[in-house]
Structures are given as structure tokens and as C-alpha cells.
């Protein structure tokens, strides 16, 4: 059986899926392939905060503090303990390292990232983040996997090879990452320690029958051969590479820190792997998120410390080695947590949360507005989404990996909002908030039904308007259109909705504004 057949037959688990009504295999051989810049040497680090990070205790909205305090008085970080970033944002006190990165213009925070119709199941939600599907779509490939499929349509057949001697993607840990699941194969090679690899026995190639049994044997045989082939380059890169930051030693070692240190050494050793994925677990803080006698300590504080301390050491290492301009990193988590804390010193599954992007080639600062925390919130209310995570993925694919916009849309199966996350690498200070080129007001609020949205545009804009409930579900789409320069009044009705709290989300081409509105 040929490897190619193996790849195709392993699709049996799902209906063959289509991109723009063309079979994927046809697409990837034809137009898409040349759209990529294969010379691009940029590297992306993904860190999964597994369990659902409580964004409201991570990046605390100072302008909402009074209301937030009322909703989570048993866990909120005292205002005086927060690390002040600017007039309206404070970081959790254990994130000293990332605060320093922020001051050094190497950290960007994107506020209120989530997706429409937030799913509050861990497993479904992380599938959505990994596959970059919509909440009601089931897709068996990962977003990085689809990107890598474009450049490596025949993988794993004849990989590694002269042009691509290095692993295409790597997971530091024991499991491959679903983010890197391609159509036929997962691109991520999982390793724990590149210094501890030895060759596996390989008794040569056999022709396995084209049956379910034969397919499993073929898969295992491939895994053996590939593990051996990549092991040589990993060992070489690990030996050639180095770590220079003293910060790996300061504060002691943690698992995440060790893993990032391995990544830094491999990059330093010249490995041309495009994507590294690792994770830190334990963010599902239903109980004991904070200590009862000191809210700045507890499980969440320890996790954020590990994250912040590890990222700082990693970034410092890259800086000392002159590698900063090759690497950008990003955190993600399946959801944020609810505004109201629970009775167990913890928080339950919520909706949107902030994402961190780190590196020297980014627009440092805070992108987006603080979440709005009202005086009264529903028990199940999470933070309303401003930015769809696919917009962050898409913007990074475009600006960091130089992928054509149209191709990004096909990889993400959707429109995405372009966000200026990546920038030239010369940034030396936190960017001032730029003039967004519009002003927008909503009235009346509360409303019995009618809503007026006054929009003033300095330049033509595209606007998508939707109404969401407190669980993050989209209730109605009001408008999805282009508007010219000048004043616009958009009127719509909420009289068909039951009384309660809703969110009106106005998505522009490069930014978003969300209003919390009360239907009375």
C-alpha cells in the first residue's frame, strides 16, 4: 500500500469535507500551494492554559473594579495588590515577569476573546479552539494542521527530507496537539527531552494490506521511522543550541519553564520547526482558586506565576541570543470564567477572556476595551466576547507567516477581523491607543425595545452588528454591511426578547465595541 493511499484512507472516520465546494486534495495541489512564502523563517509558540483561565482575576479591569468586587468579593484581588499597567488595567500580582515584559513593549493583551455561541464544555470548547471551527461545526483538523497541510500536502510521506529536515511542528510533552492535526496526519512530533533520545528498532518496510488492520500497522511503522529520522536532527540542534538567560534559575524551575527552555535551545540550535506547542494545566478553578485568607495567593496565583515567570525567562533568553525577531508566542484557553464567583472560593465555566501575545515583533499594549461589569449580573453571566479567536489566528497567519488573506479565510473557514497584532520588530515603547476612526453611541439603555445606534465614521467601514445573551449565544444578527464616511443611524428592535441583559456587539474591520444593554 502506498503512503498516499494510507493518507486518504485514514479519512474514513469522517465524511470527506470540502473547502469552497472543491475537494481539499484538489485545492492543495492547485492554487493554494504557491501562495505561501516557504522562505518564511518565523516561529510561533502556542501555550494552552488548560481548564479555562479566569481572565477577570488575571487582567483586572480597574474601571470596573467596584462592580466586580460585589460579584466576587470572596476571591477578588485587592486593588492595592494589582500590578498597574495603565489607568484601567491591573495584572495579577504574581505576574511580575509579564508585567516587566509589558513595560518592555514585549507583551500584548487582546481583551475579551471568545467566539459566538460559547460552549461551556471543556472538551467541546477546546476542540473549537483547536480546530478553529464555529460552535456548531465539527471539524476533525486543527487550524495549524490546515495551514501546514498547504505547505506540506504529502506529509508524512518522505518526511523528513532534504528541504524539510526538521519536525514541522513539535509538542513539548507526551501527546501530539490537536491544533496540528492535518487532513491525513498530525504534524506535531511530541518530545519531552531532546537529550534523551535513542533509536527505535526498525526492521524495514513491509507492504501492509489496505485494511483497517493494515492501516494501523502502517501508522505505527511510520511513527517508528519518523521518530528515528527526526531524532538525529533534534539531538544535533539540542547540542548546537544554548540557553543564556539566568532567569531560568531564578525562582526555581517549573515544568512550563523547563519546556520553554527546551524550545529556546532548539531554536538556538537552528531547528526550523515552525510551531511549538506546550501547555500548563489546572486552570479549572471551581474551588480553591484563591486562599481564603489571602486572595492574591492560591492555585490561580501559582499558575499565573508559573506562566509569567516561564515566559519572561524564555523571552529574555531569546533576547540575549538575538533571536527575538524570529519568535512570537501566544496563550489560549478554552473559555474564561463567570463574573460571579461561586461559594467554593472558585469560579465556574464562563465565556470570553484575554489572550496574551508575546515577543518583540508585536504591537505591545492592550488591544480592545475592558469588559463591562454591570452592577447586577446574571448568575451564569460570563464576559461578553469582543474578538473572535479566529481573528487572532488569522491575523497571525497573515502577518507572521505571510499567508495570503484569501488563503487564511479558507483555512479558518470564515471571515475574520484583521487585527494589528504583529508589527515591525523595532517597537521600543507601548503604542499609544490609536484613533480608531469612529465614534459610536447606543441609546436608550435600558430600553423597552427600540435601540438607536449613532455611528460617526472618519472613513468607510464595514460593520457587523449582533445581539448576544449572557451565555454568549448570538440571538440575532442586525446588520452586516459597508458604510460610507459620515453619520449613520442604525435602529433596531429588541421587543421580541424577554427582559434581561443582552450585549450588542459592533464589529468593525479592525476593532470591536460591545455594549451591555438591559431590556426592561
Amino acid at each position, binding site marked *: 500500500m502506498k503512503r498516499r493511499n494510507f493518507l486518504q484512507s*485514514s*479519512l*474514513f*472516520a*469522517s465524511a470527506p469535507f470540502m473547502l469552497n465546494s472543491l475537494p481539499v486534495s484538489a485545492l492543495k495541489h492547485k492554487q493554494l500551494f504557491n501562495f505561501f512564502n516557504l522562505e518564511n523563517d518565523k516561529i510561533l509558540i502556542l501555550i494552552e492554559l488548560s481548564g479555562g483561565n479566569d481572565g477577570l482575576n488575571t487582567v483586572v479591569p480597574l474601571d470596573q473594579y467596584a462592580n466586580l468586587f460585589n460579584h466576587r468579593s470572596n476571591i477578588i484581588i485587592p486593588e492595592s495588590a494589582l500590578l498597574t499597567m495603565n489607568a484601567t488595567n491591573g495584572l495579577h500580582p504574581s505576574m511580575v515577569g509579564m508585567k516587566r515584559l509589558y513595560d518592555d513593549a514585549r507583551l500584548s493583551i487582546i481583551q475579551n476573546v471568545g467566539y459566538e*455561541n460559547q*460552549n*461551556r*464544555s*471543556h*472538551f*467541546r470548547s477546546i476542540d473549537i479552539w483547536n480546530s478553529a471551527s464555529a*460552535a*456548531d461545526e465539527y471539524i*476533525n483538523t486543527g487550524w495549524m494542521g490546515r495551514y501546514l497541510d498547504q505547505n506540506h500536502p504529502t506529509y508524512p510521506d518522505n518526511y523528513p527530507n532534504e528541504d524539510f529536515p526538521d519536525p514541522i511542528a513539535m*509538542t513539548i*510533552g*507526551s*501527546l*501530539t496537539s490537536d491544533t496540528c*492535526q492535518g487532513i491525513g496526519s498530525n504534524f506535531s*512530533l*511530541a*518530545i*519531552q527531552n531532546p537529550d534523551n*533520545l*535513542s533509536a*527505535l*528498532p526498525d*526492521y524495514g518496510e*513491509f*507492504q501492509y*494490506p489496505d*485494511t*483497517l*488492520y493494515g492501516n*494501523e*500497522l*502502517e*501508522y*505505527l*511503522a511510520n*511513527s*517508528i521511522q*519518523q*521518530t528515528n529520522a*527526526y531524532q538525529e536532527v533534534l539531538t544535533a540542534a539540542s547540542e548546537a543550541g544554548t540557553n543564556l538567560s539566568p532567569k531560568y534559575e531564578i525562582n526555581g524551575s517549573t515544568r512550563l519553564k523547563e519546556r520553554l527552555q527546551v524550545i529556546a535551545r532548539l531554536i538556538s540550535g537552528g531547528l526550523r520547526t515552525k510551531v511549538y506547542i506546550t501547555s500548563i494545566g489546572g486552570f479549572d478553578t*471551581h*474551588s480553591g482558586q484563591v486562599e481564603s485568607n489571602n486572595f492574591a495567593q492560591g492555585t490561580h496565583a501559582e499558575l499565573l506565576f508559573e506562566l509569567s515567570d516561564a515566559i519572561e525567562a524564555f523571552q529574555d533568553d531569546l533576547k540575549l541570543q538575538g533571536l527575538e525577531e524570529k519568535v512570537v508566542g501566544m496563550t489560549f484557553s478554552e473559555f474564561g470564567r463567570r463574573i460571579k464567583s*461561586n*461559594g*467554593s472560593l472558585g469560579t*465556574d*465555566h464562563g465565556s470570553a477572556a484575554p489572550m496574551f501575545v508575546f515577543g518583540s515583533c508585536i504591537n505591545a499594549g492592550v488591544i480592545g476595551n475592558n469588559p463591562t461589569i454591570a452592577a447586577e449580573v446574571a*448568575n*451564569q453571566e460570563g464576559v461578553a466576547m469582543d474578538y473572535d479567536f479566529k481573528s487572532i489566528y488569522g491575523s497571525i497567519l497573515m502577518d507572521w507567516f505571510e499567508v495570503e488573506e484569501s488563503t487564511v479565510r479558507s483555512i479558518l473557514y470564515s471571515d475574520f477581523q484583521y487585527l494589528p497584532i504583529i508589527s515591525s520588530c523595532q517597537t521600543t515603547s507601548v503604542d499609544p491607543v490609536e484613533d480608531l476612526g469612529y465614534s459610536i453611541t447606543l441609546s436608550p439603555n435600558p430600553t423597552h425595545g427600540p435601540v438607536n445606534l449613532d455611528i460617526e465614521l472618519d472613513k468607510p467601514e464595514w460593520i457587523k452588528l449582533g445581539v448576544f*445573551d449572557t*451565555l454568549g*449565544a*448570538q440571538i440575532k444578527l442586525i446588520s452586516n454591511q459597508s458604510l460610507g464616511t459620515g453619520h449613520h443611524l442604525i435602529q433596531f428592535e429588541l421587543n421580541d426578547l424577554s427582559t434581561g441583559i443582552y450585549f450588542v456587539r459592533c464589529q468593525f474591520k479592525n476593532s470591536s465595541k460591545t455594549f451591555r444593554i438591559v431590556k426592561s
Partner: protein
Amino acid sequence: MNRRSVLRKLVASTSSIAVETANTIAPYSGPWTYLEASHLLRRATFALNRDTLEDAVDNGLDFTLDLLFADKPLPEPPINYFFEEDPNVMVGETWITKRTGDGLNGYRHRSLRAWNFNLLRNEGIHLREKMTLFWHNHFVTESINDPRLRYLYITLLRNQGLGNFKTLTEAVTVDPAMLLYLNGHQNNKNAPNENYARELLELFTIGKGDLAGPGDYTNYTEDDVVALAKALTGWRVQGSNSDEIDEPFSYYDPNRHDTGEKLLSHRFDNVVISNSEENEYKEVIAIILGKTEVAKYICRKLYRYFVHHHISETIEQNIIEPLATIFMDNEWELKPVLQTLLTSEHFYSSEFFGTIITNPIEHIIKTLNITKIEIPQDDITTYEFHNNFHIKARNMQMEYFGPPNVAGWKVYYQAPAYYRNWISAVTLPLRMDFTDDLNLRRIRANEFDLSIDPLKIVDQIPTDISLDPNLLIQDLITVFYCQPMAQVQRDALKEILIPGLPDFEWTVEYGNYLDPNTTSEELKMAVRNKLKNLFRAMMTLPEYFVC
């Protein structure tokens, strides 16, 4: 027929089997050969070796199935096998009903996991341990602090794993470990905690359907999660980690129970749950189990565990739905469903032989059991070795008592790779290290060295087989692997056994070793080394990693 000739007859010159699929749960009535028998033993037990395979072939499907479901008492509890500083438990006594204290949980955890691993390894021809593991992966708890609670939890699954699903779900709902793990213990009328209610629906019973509308997952809604959480309020755990209470337990505290009415959504026919105090959780389960989808959800999960991950429309209609009907008709008794599945035409479709990548625990136990490796019987050595195996399985990403999260091990649900998720550049070398250690080196515990003696296996094979290298390899293949092997691969294995030599050289050398007049220690070592190379190779080929 002489039983010793059964295998001989069956293995002769087979190199491949026809791929057949029967999409029906009608009782299997086709040939009962070592292929079908080994398929059953690999999937339903941990006990395959040459003897059990021959017995199963001889005894036939019906008899073997009776063994799988035979009534069986619970095992003796784990003991304190070495720790001399527990004021309440002497070495040699069990700790499961004795208060704990500072520094006492460590040895108890060690004892529990070793004891448990040993149970799996020595289960014999019975379905219980496979089902206990199934339920551990289903009703997940992970890393529970107090070993006594882990013991109660796993004993519940072991005791009821072949019983009634409804009764089991009820018992799990108020099991102390589960109450602690999914915050049921903190769930009270003033601060309802939805964690258990959500997983009860999403993972334990009905499963999450497609998103049909805001907060509506077809089978249930977000509001149902809230309502059921309220209905489940009031349960507490007493004595966890206590140095005063010998036997921790769960109990119902009426002061913490929400006595109000709980209105369910149209997905549950707008049923209202009224206050029924400590019996309310049973009503919750009865309402959920009123839905046929529960039976299908559980049958799909059993299917993925025992047969194959892929459930097509045809399989859904012809296998899952009929099984679900049996499940409902028998009021959630598990035996009829499992018996039907494991005796069905579908289960014995040759298409499925060897199509599941073994989990790490299966990989370890398979290696120990097919080689009939013997571990000294004394408590310390037995416990220490099994603790060692537990840790090896953990490193290969399968820790008993510590699944990665509440959904269980990813391989049993994560499309599209499913069982392939066991394999990575980290875990594959660890699997091979384990068999290499036993074949080429040793595993040490309590100053005892454990290794495989291939002669012990080969000497038990009738000499008309073992003297012929071709037949010998065929014979080993029937025990080590799920399907016959192509001639070219068998030749490659023979090349490892007797590199560059004609067949008769094996016959002569092994014959001289067997003959009391010509044997010697040197010859024995030489023959053993040849066989070690063969075993080592056979245990690192892809065929060894599937069942």
C-alpha cells in the same frame, strides 16, 4: 481432537485472512478458530497466553463467554505491605478502614495502585477488570487525595461494573470520591455548584448533542444543568483525610438542600422536580434515563471500547440501536448488552481483528502474561513490582486513578485519531524500552531481577512445532499477534532467529539442547540468546502494539 494439536492445525501455512464484515448483532455461528478466540480474549480480558488461547479454542464461544460473566467475589483488600510507622495499621493488615494521618497516605497510595495493577494482571478469563477500567474511564475521578476514598470508588465500579447501569449511576452520584472530584460536596442551596450536574449530562449519561439554539444542546439545555444542580444539593463528605474517622462516608444534609421546585426544559418534557430530599438524586437519574439517547450514548461508548472507534450510519442503525433497545428492554442491565455484543456476528468480523492500538496497561500486562513471567509471591516483591508497572503505564500516558481529565483518556473519544493518540515520539520508545528491558536487560524491584525467559515459553510448545523454525514462528505469531503474518515478514523473523543459517541448524541446536545427552549450560544460553533476539524483535514490531 488432541488439544495440543489444535493450534498446529490452525496455524499451518496461513498468511492472511479474508476481510469480512457482518453488520448484525445476530449470534455468531461461523468457525471458532484461534483467530476468533484470541480476538475475544484480547478485547475482553488481560489474560491471553498460549494456554488460555488453546482452552478458549477447545471450550468454544459459549463456554468461554460463561467464564467471562461468572459470578465472582470481590478481591481481598490492599494491605500495608511495608510501612512500619502507621500507628493504626500493622504491616500485613489492610488500611482501608483505618484513619489516616500525617505522612500516611503515601504508602497507602502505593499499596492501592500496586494491588489494583495486580488484580488486572491476574484477573484470568473474566470481563470484570476490563469493565472496571471502562467505568473508570467513564465515571472519571482523578487524583483523589484520600486512598480510602479511591478504594471505595474503584470497589464500587468493580462490584457493579457488570450489573445495572442505573444503580451504578446512582451509586456513583453520591460516592464520596465523586462528590469531592466534581464539587458535589460543595453544592448547596445558597451556592449551587454545577460541575457534577453538567458532567452527569454531558459525559456520564445522555451526552451532548448538537447545538440547537442558545444554550440548547439537543439532549439538554444550560437551564437543565442549573436545575439539576439544585436537585443534587445537600450531599456532603465526612472524614476525607481524617485522622479521627476510620471510614469516610457521604451523607445528606437537609439544611443544604434546595427544596424548591426545579423546572426542566422541553428537552426533558418540562418536568418539574419537587423536593424529595435524600432521594431526589435518584429522581434526577430516573428522569435522564427516561430518554433513549442515554442507552445509545452508552452503547456507542462500549462499542468504541470493545470493537472499533468508527461508528458509521450503518453501524449506528444495525448495531448501536438494537443494542440500545436490549439495554432499555432489560432495564439497564449490562450483561445482556455485553453478551449480545461479544457474541455477535459483527464482533467477530475479521475486519476488526487487531485494529485497536493497545493501551499502555494492556501493553504491559500482555507482555507479562504471554511470557508467563513469574513474580515472587511475597508481599513486598509483588507490591513493589506492580507499583513499578503502574508507574511505567503512567509514563506511557495511562495512569490508573489519574485519567487526564473528566472526559477520560483522549483515545476513547478524540476524533479522528482515537487509539492512535497513545502513540507519540515519547510513548513509543517507552513501550519498546519496557519490552527491551524484559527481553535484553531486567526490571528490578526489592532486589529481585525480572526478565523474560523465552525458553520457558518455547519449551512448552510441542516439539514437532518448536523444532521447525517456521512452525515455531507461526506458533508464536498466533499468541503475540492478532492476525497471521505475511511470508516475507516471517522470513525476516527467522533471519533474526538464525541469521544466515539454513532451517535445519535450528532443529539441530534446539534438538541438542532438548536432548539430555547433549545439552549443556553453554548450549542453553546460546539457544536462549537466539530466542531473546526473536522475542525482542517480535515485541517491537507494529503488530505487537495492536489488539
